[in-house]
């Protein structure tokens, strides 16, 4: 940890169940999550000194619109757009501000309403040469999948097994968009989206919101019986690589996690539970390797052996992940933090990871030519 920054803890969490809320507005989605986080922290709205809001498609000043409707107008509001890393980026900026001594109590929230875009694939940058030639996000991951299967001898059944695990976990999470289990056969028989990926291997269209309140660790005990320490926070951006790139090793995640491990003095072996960016089945397998949970080509074995299931050595996406809990883009980073904080507090009931003391959240984001991804934000938490 940086020597001149003070320790920071999470003292409040809130989220709404992810799903389709076509008749809501963005502030209406965010309000319940924000109010729950404040209530958990035992704080009145007037005690919050700044707001950091993460969202990708909610228009101008989403943070102010939520502050207006929840008794917090007038204080500094920072709106963060970083694709799927939007609210993880907001959390990091809030952490920097509190750790630096600028504020004592800060609210972070993420929100997204994808149903208003009409469903289907996400609209990407129309000036990008790959996008104008037919690139869509599922195809980008599909090509990673094809290459991974080719290079490491994995099968489409191995990919489907990721979705089966996600749904099994999600079935235990009351806040998940999908709460039904599935089978390898059902996953492979679902509609083709971008070969080899089928519908059940892709995160759903959905809406959602999640919020957390942070403060200096020295104040945390007066607000929470189980505060959770922020052990490390890291943000990386895509590095332009000319020429050939290995699409089975997401460089941005490997670099961002490596820097975080160095910063915290903790490594993959210290992690008891983690939430990673499983926007598509292949992503989870690639991230096992990029985050250092196993070596190159070993991800399928890790999944098959149950290491990453609840009850295994390092459960991944106990919430159901993006595949089952849902992926309202800008809300996902904050929702991952809510899940890991609650896991470390021992509050997750049926999906609780027993004895978890160190947890990690990982989101990436953005399809842009020349990069693996535009953004990646990784946080580590501990009790």
């Amino acid at each position: 940890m940086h020597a001149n920054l003070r320790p920071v803890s999470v003292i409040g969490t809130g989220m709404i169940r992810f799903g389709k809320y076509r008749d809501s507005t963005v502030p209406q989605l965010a309000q319940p999550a924000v109010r729950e986080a404040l209530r958990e922290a035992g704080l009145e709205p007037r005690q919050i000194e700044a707001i950091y809001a993460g969202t990708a498609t909610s228009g101008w000043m989403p943070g102010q619109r939520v502050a207006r409707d929840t008794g917090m107008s007038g204080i500094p509001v920072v709106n963060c757009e970083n694709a799927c890393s939007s609210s993880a980026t907001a959390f990091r900026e809030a952490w920097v501000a509190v750790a630096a001594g600028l504020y004592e109590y800060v609210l972070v929230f993420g929100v997204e309403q994808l149903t208003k875009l009409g469903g289907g694939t996400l609209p990407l940058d129309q000036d990008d040469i790959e996008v104008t030639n037919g690139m869509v996000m599922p195809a980008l991951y599909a090509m990673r999948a094809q290459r991974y299967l080719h290079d490491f001898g994995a099968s489409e059944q191995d990919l489907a097994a990721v979705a089966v695990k996600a749904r099994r976990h999600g079935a235990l999470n009351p806040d998940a968009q999908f709460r039904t289990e599935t089978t390898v056969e059902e996953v492979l028989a679902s509609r083709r989206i971008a070969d080899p990926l089928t519908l059940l291997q892709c995160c759903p269209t959905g809406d959602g919101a999640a919020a957390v309140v942070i403060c200096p660790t020295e104040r945390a005990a007066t607000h929470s019986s189980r505060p959770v320490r922020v052990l490390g926070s890291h943000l990386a951006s895509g590095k332009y690589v000319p020429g050939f790139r290995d699409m089975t090793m997401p460089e941005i995640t490997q670099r961002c996690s490596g820097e975080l491990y160095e910063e915290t003095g903790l490594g993959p072996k210290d992690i008891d539970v983690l939430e990673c960016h499983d926007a598509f089945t292949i992503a989870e397998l690639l991230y096992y390797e990029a985050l250092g949970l196993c070596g190159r080509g070993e991800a399928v074995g890790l999944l098959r052996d149950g290491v990453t299931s609840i009850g295994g050595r390092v459960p991944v996406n106990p919430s159901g992940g993006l595949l089952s809990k849902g992926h309202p883009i800008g809300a996902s980073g904050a929702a991952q933090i809510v899940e890991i904080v609650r896991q470390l507090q021992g509050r997750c009931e049926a999906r609780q990871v027993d004895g978890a003391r160190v947890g990690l959240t990982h989101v990436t984001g953005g399809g842009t030519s020349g990069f693996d991804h535009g953004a990646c934000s990784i946080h580590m938490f501990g009790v």
Partner: protein
Amino acid sequence: MSSPAPAETRRPPTTGRTLRASDVTHAVDGSPRLCGAECAACGTRIFPAAQVCPSCNSEEMKPLSLSGHGVLYAFSTVHVAPAAWETPYTIGYVDLPEGVRVFGKVEGASALVPDAEVGVRIEPIDDPKGGSAPAFQYWFTPRGTR
């Protein structure tokens, strides 16, 4: 999923953006070639060309004629896309001998596997914007087919 656009407005991807005249050069035999750029300062090679080197920020970018064949790194047939695009279509990345990876539409994908040799087909088209400069588009095709 969104409902499809009326048939008359749907079109294959790639017809929206054509290659600019500067993206295409011609080999000695007159056949069209993709034209990228090489940085005279650091040697970085890119496609499409740019005025500034993305690796070292130099402005010494020279035109680079690219081979008409390469190796298919990965590809995917897309079944769900923005409403204006006709599906299915196949897209992929091709590694050219010059060390440049080019993204584009793939034809004849059923006959292809990763690491297959493919050709780059470039054809002049009518510029949808009605400009006077020639416009082109390109596909990757199984090697030997034209």
